[in-house]
């Protein structure tokens, strides 16, 4: 691959970094990252990866842009309300950087399609930007089974967390959290709210993990759960270890097929009011 003059200028601040250089920028341009969920976390992750020149970015989301998304999902604009998020996301990325091949999957990730989506372009790294536990566990299990690295993250109120799974190098999400909590057991952003910047901070950390993985530099959050409390402005990196008895990545896995956990449609919250599904 030869760089054009425009690319040399566009990526010059990367290229002068000793840990990136021309060869590292080539790795990014040859890199393939799949982002599942184009919401609060996926939006900033996709934008930074696009700007960085990650050559192939897959976006998975069945939702369309809603006005209430725009407080934090900065890849979408007012003119995009009603448009499929993957399409709006693709347009934003390509306006920033025409080098990027944005592949859109206008569907929810399920046990029936997730393996095919990951295999579609043989993605190098997966970012979990989803808003619900059944899909978070689905992504974890699929990545463990396909031996694909991925970044988990979650945000609520002024809190966020993220960890990175590298096959054979530390714990998976299920080592820490065994099963999805029952629906309604854990507050959601729609019930509890979320500070708009949380997705920006945590989603950008996910993008940094993907870029470091593609470059092969630095230490990743494998074996650590990073928590961020924006109210106290406190980051904590908690050491976590692989569970040899983990149901999916353990020495004798009992989960060998993907599971679609029941997705209760939250028609009734504890307060009894009607709620519609929303992206974080």
């Amino acid at each position: 691959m030869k760089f054009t003059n425009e690319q040399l200028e566009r990526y010059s601040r990367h290229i002068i970094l000793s840990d990136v250089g021309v060869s590292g920028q080539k790795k990014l341009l040859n890199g393939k990252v799949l982002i599942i969920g184009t919401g609060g976390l996926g939006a900033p992750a996709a934008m930074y990866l696009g700007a960085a020149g990650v050559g192939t970015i897959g976006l998975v989301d069945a939702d369309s842009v809603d006005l209430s998304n725009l407080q934090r999902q900065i890849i979408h604009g007012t003119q995009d309300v009603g448009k499929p998020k993957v399409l709006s996301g693709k347009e934003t990325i390509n306006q920033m950087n025409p080098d990027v091949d944005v592949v859109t999957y206008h569907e929810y990730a399920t046990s029936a399609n997730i393996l095919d989506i990951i295999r579609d372009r043989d993605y190098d790294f997966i970012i979990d930007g989803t808003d619900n536990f059944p899909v978070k566990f689905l992504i974890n299990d699929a990545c463990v089974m396909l031996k694909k690295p991925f970044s988990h993250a979650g945000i609520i109120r002024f809190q966020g967390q993220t960890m990175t799974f590298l096959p054979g190098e530390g714990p998976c999400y299920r080592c820490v959290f065994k099963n999805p909590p029952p629906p309604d057991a854990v507050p959601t952003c729609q019930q509890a709210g979320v500070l708009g910047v949380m997705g920006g901070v945590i989603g950008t950390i996910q993008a940094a993990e993907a870029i470091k993985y593609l470059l092969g530099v630095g230490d990743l959050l494998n074996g650590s759960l990073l928590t961020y409390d924006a109210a106290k402005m406190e980051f904590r990196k908690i050491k976590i270890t692989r569970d040899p008895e983990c149901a999916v990545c353990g020495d004798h896995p009992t989960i060998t097929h993907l599971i679609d956990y029941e997705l209760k449609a939250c028609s009734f919250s504890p307060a009894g009011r009607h709620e519609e599904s929303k992206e974080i």
Partner: protein
Amino acid sequence: MIITINGKQNSFEAEMSVQELLEKTEVDMQEYVTVQLNDEIISRKDFSSIPVRDGDRVEFLYYMGGGQYKKIA
């Protein structure tokens, strides 16, 4: 005795079980929180039998999702 909970030191009068610590500290979502004692995740079935001692480090790790459960089309 001093127990470090999520990075902060807390003082307690007597040794107690993990379950008693959860109750005493009024941890959120006690039924769903993951408990790590000195870097090792504790099985929920052992909460009542495993003691927390002076100098121990405890991490309460919470589920953090985002949006909410929704129907898959």
